[in-house]
């Protein structure tokens, strides 16, 4: 409908007979009128008034309503009225008078915002055009050709691009009309029109206009001149014949259709346009190339020949500019007014006007276009990714962009490519993510992309959140885990403070006054595991169970030992009676207590006893060695007892005991038969039972005096002289005393230490099993284990404890240069492992080193000499529980969000129901959390 206005103007122009005979413009309007008239509407009436003023334009008024959209009506409405007015003005008559009539104005406005326009027009009609602040008054052009540039300049300065209109009205008379037009254009953002545009603009508004536009046809007939010039194609034809042929030709038709469809700048946003040739270029470079090009030159020449105005080579920006209107009282549109965005050279040719389009309501687009334009002169990026391909002469023949994988032959093309959007995108993607690449200009595309982006973001957001939640959860779990452990530790420490050295299990069961140490302390030590046993633990525990003596073995040993002890007591009584008949049966009790007594301070106590009166020869009997320490293993058939004598034990004493012992044994255990041998060189006698299990009890005679003498060597020279001639082997006696101390040490230190006894048993087994380890004496081994395990500073599971012992050995605990194992039971600093030779130490260390790595690599069974233990079976139960629960929960999850809560509850129940399984399943959960 703009164009109806235009056509009106054109009509007027035509009516003026500007003398431009060949001007095809004149034709189109009529065409349009007719077509549009078909769609008559209520507006007609409104128009009629206006139309009435100028009879010729009644048609125009009629056509107007054909623009279907009501919104467009508004614009069109005002405009048409104006066109009408313009036409009226153009009608040579006193346009003033026409406009002066207010009635016309009111007639068509009917609540229209554009009504204001009319008032403006009236002003315009008065040649003043004062109504708009911003609208410059464009001086009417008097001559089509010559004044053109001037007009252009004027137009250029104007914020409103009125030039197209100005161009159209070429006569002097137009002076009146022109301002009107200008105002009109400044109105609703309509563009323009021109010969070709009518259909075009129409279509833009109609959105692929459904109304068939026949207007082109009438335009086609040429007005034969000496030159046959086709305005659409910008070419001249040699003669009418060729001209006609041209018009019929494919090329022309195409162009025409293209013109009808209107320039499609929106695809790329702003683009540059050569008005003269009607060529749209995507960028300044392309435009420059075009201007330089042969085709353009030809057209220029032609135009020169024709005497047509040649627009400046400044490009016309297509795509429009936005402008917010200054809504003064006089202005037309309350909202924005968009004008055709010709910045520079408005062309004199009508053709030129065709190019200008304004897309109303596409403000966003326009803004982008502006942006786009700005970025046309961005820095080229990614030069380093463009490879120069040279021919054999070394001349650069083409370029290859590695980012985009494309080639160009022309340096210009290369430049363009580097500025291009595609390249920049690639660069952004592959090289510098911070590079700003302009947003895709197309509205729809952009919307689609935005949509896509948003969806993607949402998705990412969701994943991120989920991940975060997961992490948080994990963290929390870790936190609680740490916390729990910490609390355990605290609790444990508390416990330890209350019960020093006690295991965190049941409090130590040994009251201080207990007459005898437990026969086998800590069988399978019922110490709670702080952690569930690892594979190593399981192996160690299994091995331990394997080497631990059977019940009947223990019973047998227990029996023979206690019988021997009782018999020895009776021997002692007997000897005491013989030596000093006064003394009655008081002593035996003391004897038994003695077992406890030396624990504190044997030397002193014994000294005290001596003072009691005539000394008893046999003061007491004590268990030592594996028996006292509880290190009996399966198959052990030899235990040791030590009899403390009042004086240095002599062979005579040994004989007396050996003689009397069988009698006493017969008294104690009449049904059992015992065989007793004297081993004088060992300072011992051996009691053996006669039965299936041969168990021997070595009874060594010793006396603390032996050691006292040794300790106070200087003073005791006299006593040494006093020694009876048949005193037993001194070293053996001393060893027996040491064994006594070791037993005491063991009960004080090792027994209470978690995992320690177990590890010592395991190592005892190892020493017996593996020849390399044979030389390691048991005292050194016990001492070492205790030190190593105690020095860990924390409680170790059996597996960890065993590994730590191997670690210590592997790190060279026995090697020369190490601190050695200081024997706590000797006054002088002595290495408990001193009997080991350098080679033995080396071999044991090497073996331990290998064993350590075996343990680390899950082959502890090789170290322990057993078969690997598969993971316990009931573990599976735990697993299944969990699996089942998992399955269930998925079932539950379907019905509600509260499934989680249910799951938890269920889990709780599960855990309450079977404690055994619970450990495993919860442990699994933990492990999963890792």
């Amino acid at each position, binding site marked *: 409908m703009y164009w109806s206005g235009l056509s009106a103007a054109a009509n007027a122009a035509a009516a003026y007979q500007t003398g431009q005979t060949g001007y095809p413009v004149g034709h189109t309007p009529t065409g349009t009128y007719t077509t549009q008239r078909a769609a008559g509407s209520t507006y007609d009436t409104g128009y009629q008034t206006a139309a009435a003023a100028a009879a010729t334009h009644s048609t125009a008024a009629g056509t107007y309503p054909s623009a279907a959209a009501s919104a467009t009506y508004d614009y069109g409405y005002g405009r048409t009225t104006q066109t009408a007015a313009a036409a009226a003005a153009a009608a040579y008559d006193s346009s003033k008078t026409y406009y002066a009539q207010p009635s016309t104005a009111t007639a068509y406005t009917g609540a229209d915002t554009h009504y204001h326009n009319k008032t403006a027009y009236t002003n315009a009609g008065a040649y003043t055009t004062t109504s708009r602040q911003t609208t410059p008054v464009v001086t009417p052009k008097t001559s089509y050709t010559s004044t053109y540039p001037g007009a252009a300049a004027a137009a250029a300065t104007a914020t409103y691009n009125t030039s197209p209109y100005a161009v159209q009205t070429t006569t002097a008379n137009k002076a009146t009309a022109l301002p009107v037009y200008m105002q009109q254009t400044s109105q609703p953002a309509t563009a323009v029109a021109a010969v070709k545009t009518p259909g075009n603009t129409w279509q833009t508004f109609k959105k692929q206009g459904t109304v068939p536009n026949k207007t082109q046809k009438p335009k086609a007939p040429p007005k034969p001149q000496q030159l046959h010039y086709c305005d659409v194609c910008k070419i001249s034809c040699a003669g009418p014949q060729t001209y006609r042929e041209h018009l019929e030709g494919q090329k022309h038709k195409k162009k025409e259709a293209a013109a009808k469809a209107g320039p499609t700048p929106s695809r790329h946003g702003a683009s540059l346009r050569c008005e003269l040739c009607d060529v749209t270029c995507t960028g300044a470079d392309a435009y420059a190339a075009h201007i330089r090009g042969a085709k353009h030159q030809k057209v220029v020449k032609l135009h020169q020949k024709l005497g047509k105005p040649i627009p400046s080579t400044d490009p016309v920006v297509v795509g429009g500019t936005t402008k917010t209107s200054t809504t003064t009282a006089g202005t037309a549109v309350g909202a924005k007014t968009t004008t055709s965005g010709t910045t520079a050279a408005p062309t004199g040719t009508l053709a030129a006007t065709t190019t200008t389009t304004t897309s109303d309501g596409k403000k966003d687009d326009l803004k982008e276009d502006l942006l786009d334009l700005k970025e046309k002169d961005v820095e080229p990026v*990614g030069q*380093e990714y463009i490879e120069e391909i040279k021919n054999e002469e070394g001349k650069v023949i083409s370029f290859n962009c*590695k980012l985009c994988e494309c080639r160009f032959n022309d340096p210009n093309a290369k430049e363009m490519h580097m500025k291009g959007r595609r390249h920049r995108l690639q660069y952004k993607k592959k090289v*510098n*993510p911070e590079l700003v690449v302009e947003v895709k200009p197309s509205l729809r595309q952009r919307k689609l992309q935005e949509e896509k982006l948003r969806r993607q973001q949402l998705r990412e957001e969701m994943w991120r959140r989920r991940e975060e939640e997961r992490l948080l959860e994990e963290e929390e779990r870790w936190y609680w885990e740490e916390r729990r*452990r910490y609390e355990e530790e605290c609790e*444990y420490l508390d*416990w330890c403070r209350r019960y020093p050295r006690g295991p*965190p299990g*049941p409090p130590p069961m040994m009251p201080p006054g207990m007459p005898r140490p437990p026969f086998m302390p800590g069988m399978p030590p019922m110490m709670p*595991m702080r952690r*569930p*046993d*690892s*594979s190593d633990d*399981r192996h160690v525990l299994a091995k331990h169970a394997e080497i631990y003596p059977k019940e009947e073995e223990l019973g047998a040993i227990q029996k023979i030992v206690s019988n021997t002890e009782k018999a020895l007591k009776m021997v002692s009584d007997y000897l005491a009676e013989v030596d000093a008949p006064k003394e009655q049966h008081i002593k035996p009790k003391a004897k038994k207590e003695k077992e406890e007594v030396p624990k504190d301070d044997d030397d002193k106590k014994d000294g005290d006893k001596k003072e009691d009166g005539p000394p008893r020869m046999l003061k007491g009997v004590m268990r030592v060695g594996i028996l006292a320490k509880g290190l009996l293993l399966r198959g052990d058939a030899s235990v040791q007892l030590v009899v403390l004598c009042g004086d240095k034990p002599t062979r005579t004493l040994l004989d007396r005991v050996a003689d009397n012992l069988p009698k006493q044994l017969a008294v104690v255990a009449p049904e059992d038969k015992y065989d007793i041998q004297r081993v004088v060189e060992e300072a011992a006698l051996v009691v053996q039972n006669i039965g299936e299990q041969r168990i021997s009890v070595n009874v060594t005679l010793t006396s603390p005096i032996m050691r006292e003498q040794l300790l106070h060597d200087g003073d005791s020279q006299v006593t040494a002289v006093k020694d009876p001639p048949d005193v037993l082997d001194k070293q053996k006696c001393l060893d027996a005393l040491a064994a006594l101390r070791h037993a005491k040490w063991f009960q004080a230190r090792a027994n209470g230490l978690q995992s320690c006894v177990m590890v010592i048993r395991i190592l005892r087994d190892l020493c017996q099993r593996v020849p390399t380890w044979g030389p390691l004496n048991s005292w050194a081994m016990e001492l070492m284990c205790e*030190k*190593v395990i105690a*020095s*860990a500073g924390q409680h170790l599971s059996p597996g960890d404890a065993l*590994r*730590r012992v191997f*670690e*210590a050995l*592997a*790190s*060279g*605990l026995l090697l*020369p*240069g*190490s601190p*050695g194992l*200081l024997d706590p039971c000797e006054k002088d600093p002595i290495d408990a492992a001193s009997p080991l030779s*350098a*080679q033995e130490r*080396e071999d044991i*260390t*090497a073996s331990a*080193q*290998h064993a*350590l*790595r075996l343990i*680390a*690599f*899950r*082959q502890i069974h090789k170290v322990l000499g057993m078969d690997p233990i*598969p*993971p*316990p079976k009931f*573990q*599976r139960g735990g697993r299944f529980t969990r699996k089942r629960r998992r399955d269930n929960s998925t079932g539950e999850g379907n019905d509600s969000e509260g499934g989680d809560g249910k799951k938890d509850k269920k889990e709780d129940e599960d*855990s309450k129901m079977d*404690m*055994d*399984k619970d*450990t*495993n399943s*919860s*442990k699994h959960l933990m*492990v999963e959390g890792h």
Partner: protein
Amino acid sequence: MRGGMIRPMGPGPHFGPKMKQFVPRLPFDMVLCESAFPRVKAAPDESAFTQALLKRNADLSPTPAEQAAVLNLVTKIQAVMDNLIVDPGNFDACSSISQQIEEVRQVGSYKKGTMMTGHNVADIVVILKTLPTKEAVEALGKKVCDDLRAQEPQEVLVLTMLPNDRGFEISNSEATVRVLVTTIHQNLRKLDPELHLDQKILQSHLAAIRHSRWFEENAHHSTIKVLIRLLRDLRGRFEGFEPLSPWMLDLLAHYAILNNPSRQALPINSAFRRCLQLLAAGLFLPGSAGISDPCEGGNIRVHTAMTLEQQDLVCLTAQTLLRVLSHGGYKQILGLEGNSSIASEMSVWDGVVVSALEKAYEKPPERPPQDDDTDNMDADDDPMETTDN
């Protein structure tokens, strides 16, 4: 014998049903439990050993001339890089390159002061703002090299690209500077393996920066530097130590010297022995707490970067060398005498036969697939995983 069976139900502290499966534990460490092992006899005189260590260190340290040469080259390159950062305007073709540099940092042995003679290479890490393409690395190399040449045209500079495009080397006749390229953190996830450098490489370069920073703050003690040099030398001469990364050695040296009850630096002889003791005791074996990486979150144990087989190998080598050392073979260990066969072959020291050890690691046997429950079970129990978390 799983937990539930032997858990006491009686009084005493109750432990929650949740139990942590695998708590790594530090191996036995004599230095940490010295009090439990009072010396039986006076410590042997180790002055000869100490002297040998110091001599070896002196041999390994770069000469002043080398240091000057490398310092010179580093300074120049650093200046060129700084120029590129400060003044991205002075470009021609490499415009985008110069704008890409975020930061330039010296890392590695040069920065830490643990360089060794004959290996006059300094490391510099360049952090690009852009995604590190191979072309960018190349272009940067060229640009830096060109700028250097422009400054001193008479100097002969050789530009070599490093394998995997991790960076480039610029060397003159006396020194080499290795420029390693990486990118800012945000870019790491945008990497396309087709186009850009390997993410692992980039991360390792970023880690190198953290490492040198940590080192500066924590390990500036000169004994540590001496020990690192000695350990590196050890690693170079004994094949079994090959899997130990420089970073592991840094941490090990730091640990061996400073992680003791008194928190005073141990003398070099004790520290050197302790390194071997720690390794021999399985500090870097599965199930050990090892040394957790101070520059990574999440308590990552550094030794888990090695495969199980490598962990076995490292431990085994250390164990053998420890025994050799304790029998007086320090000259062979330090490379002052003999060769590296002591780690792999039997040797006799003062009548004591020291035999080499065998590998303990075995590839896990293939399990039948339907047994996956047990399999998972084992994995749960398994303290042998190479990486935590």
